């Protein structure tokens, strides 16, 4: 377990939004598990830290919550993406790609093609 990375602050929100976009409405546990699986078990999520992040996204209006029933008939709170959340996801994803692209170019040492 020693080589697993903790989730960086800030990226967790993006991951949550992407997860909800990909899978539709999902409960907190589901989101956590999905993030771990997507990372190929390279990331370790302290499930507890997820809930304040969810609350923050909800307060900002990017996701909405609703009580529902899970697959095995348990009551659970389901989160889903709002329209503002979809936009926010696009924006954040774009920024993130830009950042990684810049970093990648920087690290590869190539001159920009002029």
């Amino acid at each position, binding site marked *: 377990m020693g080589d697993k990375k903790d989730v960086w602050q800030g990226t967790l929100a993006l991951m949550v939004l992407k997860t909800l976009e990909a899978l539709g409405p999902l409960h907190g546990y589901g989101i956590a598990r999905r993030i771990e699986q997507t990372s190929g078990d390279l990331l370790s999520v302290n499930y507890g830290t997820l809930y*304040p992040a969810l609350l923050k996204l909800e*307060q900002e209006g990017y996701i909405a919550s609703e009580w529902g029933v899970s697959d095995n008939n348990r009551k*659970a709170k389901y989160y889903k993406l709002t329209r503002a959340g979809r936009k926010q996801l696009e924006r954040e994803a774009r920024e993130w790609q830009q950042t990684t692209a810049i970093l990648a170019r920087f690290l590869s040492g190539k001159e920009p093609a002029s």
Partner: protein
Amino acid sequence: MSWLRATFVRFRSLFRKRQLDRELNAELTGHLELHIADNLRAGMTPEAARRDALLKLGGVEQTKESVRDRRGISFLETLLQDFRYALRSLVKNRALSFVAIFALALGIGATTVMFSVVYNVFFDPLPYKNFNRYVVFGIQNLANVGGWKGRGFFSLEEVRAFREQNHVFEETIAHNGYRLLYDNGKYTHHWPRGEEVTTNTFEFLGVPPLLGRTFSEEDSRPAAPPVFIMNYRLWQSEFGGDPKILDTVFILDGKPKTLVGIMPQRFNFFGASFWLPVSDTKASGSVVGRLKPGVRAQTAAADLDAIAHRLQKENPQGIFPDKFSIVPETLLDSFIGGFRKTLYALLAAVLLLLLIACSNVANLLLLRATVREREIVMRATLGASRFRLIRQLLAESFVLAAVASVAGCVLAYFALKVVVALIPAGTLPEEVLIRMNVPILFAALGLTLLTTVLSGLAPVLHIMSGDLQSRLTGSGRNVEGNLRHGKLRSSLVIGEVALSIVLLIGAGLLMRSFFILTKADLGFDPQNVLYFRLALPKAYNTNIDVTREKKNALTRQVLERMQGLPGVTSVSESMLEPPLRYDWSDTIIPGKPHTERWETRFEVCSAGYFQILGLPLLHGRLFSEDDVNANRHVMVVNESFSRQYFPNQDPIGHQVKLEVLDRPFLDAPHDTYFEIIGIVPDYKTLDDDGRSWRAFPQTFIPYSVQGFSHRTYMARTFADPKVLLKNIQQEVRAIDPSVEIETSGTLTASLNEFYRRPQFEVLTLGTFAFIGLVLVVIGIFGVMAHSVSRQTHEIGIRIALGAQRTDILSMVFVKSLRIIAAGVAIGLLASYESSRFLASEVSGVSISDPSTYGVVTFIVVAVGLLACYLPARRATRVDPMIALRYE
């Protein structure tokens, strides 16, 4: 904008905590169940599944806590907690909170009232533009002769010279009193006094009219249609506020004049009820100037002084004394005069009171802090930050101060009404409106804050000082610590006692001087004496030779008819009514040169004057009928006159000249010597300080020798003199229908009016002092009660060892006596220093009057000991068994 939305949601969630907590609980429970189910499916034992789920979550409570942190606004929440906790603990200590709030409310209430008065009187008294720079001035006679001390009334030429030649005023106006008869079509009567003003007056004052217009320069031209402006009060009282009277024609003094404007309610320039325009070339009377910015009143005086001296040189026969100077005064000072000092003294008193209130509250909070010490130390040990603890305690005193300031404002609202009603009429110009306004409210809020910090600081400092550990392990009765806060509390009480002594002595001095003033023997009985003055029509003032005879004839008839009325015992005519009003003159007696001023009060009167005042003849004779009818130059003097100017000599037959009669414009015997024919006993008139009675050298001459004086009539009656007035009015009208009664009243009523000013001071300062004393009682009681309860253990041991009740009593009393004595000593010293500020308010009694100091000391010590009676009695009832087990 998402953060804004988030903040809003967070703020809202402060109010739906319970529901959100329930939901969070359900969500986390659901999460765990899902995780456990997954783990079980993966083949874990139930126990391991649960353990892993909990670990992965990082603890249910921790998660909840971090969600809660994110959910609301934690700073606000803990602040709310602080306030809720503060409220709870204040409610729990109901008696203590009540006393503290009571003390603060009294302090804040009294301070708000005084601040309201001072603000409105000094900072916003007049509605006039730049009124701070308005200066009025007069001539002061510096020579010891001439018979007058000063005048603020100037002739036409003088007004012109001052207005045109000065270098210090931006602009000047001149105004002069004016009386006129109004003919309403049925009958004529006098309007209350009005003024003739230069046409720039209204622009100068910068107040727009309520209706119509003010004067323009054209209004004073000779050919201009005659116009006038009315003040609000006259408009209301005579015309019911009817706006249709604007631009209509009034018959005033028999001539038509058009009403062109009505001024607003808060415009009462020099108390006039109407204003007439006068051109700059014809203006005489008094001058008001607006100083150029940066010019001081003293500079202005020097400039005006030069003009006046030039005038004196140009017309030597003008009425300038040999030596004189111009004395300037700001307009506000000329209105308020000595009342400024009174207000400052009261303001100082109220600040002392506020100090007492604050130290009282600090004391009570400190007392409670010691009781709660262990609780607070416990909280600190459990990890409460100092900041949090301080905030908690500040919240408590803030809640206290907030409640108190609301109570104080309510109190102030009603107290202000009382104070305004108590301020004697005429002390303040009518334009001054005393009310609570926004600045005052802010001042009250500022006071709340100040009080919070002051009274909150003591307990905070106390708790934060020293080592928490030792307090926790020590039993809470830590001897060393105790001694220290004991000292702090005692010194607060000592301070309170000292401050209250200062207040009490101030109030005591005022009270004594008030009693001396009101209970003085004037030398005559003012009860049941009616007086009135006549307003004579112009016909009585045309030709000097005729008027004197005409006035004398009128006087003779009025006196005759008054004497004939039922219930009248004696009647008189004089210039003014004693003892508040008087005229005086420098005195010359042949063969008796003197360098100092020989000031004699004099009265021009009928023979009945001595009868009315009950002054028996001591020597010689009084005026005879013949003396009066023949306008003989005879004079009656009083004992003081005889004693002072004719020591060891019989004054009868000597000649005396009253210099004041020499003034050229007076219809009086100039350069005339009067022969002394009789001596009467002294009676007292108002002293020059305006606050005490004194017997002056006094002379009396027959009214018939002159024509200038006011005609004031007095009648002594058996019963209520007021009833007589109607009859007299009829009699006067029967003699001459054009003569009106101008002012009337009784001597007692005018005395009572005069007493209102010192009464106001006594009542206000007395109330402050009383409140201060009550607060001190509370303070002493609090400290002693607490110290007794702290000493229960010790007292128990003493009783067990055989101490008597009296030993215990004296132990408690000696301790409190020590505190009281220290306070009294400091207070007496401070009073000795500070009561000189009251010197201008106190008369007839020294400001270091030993008996006042004695009585106040006695009262404070007695009341103080009374305050510790209850705690002392409780000490004697300590059951040694219980006390020893108390630990």
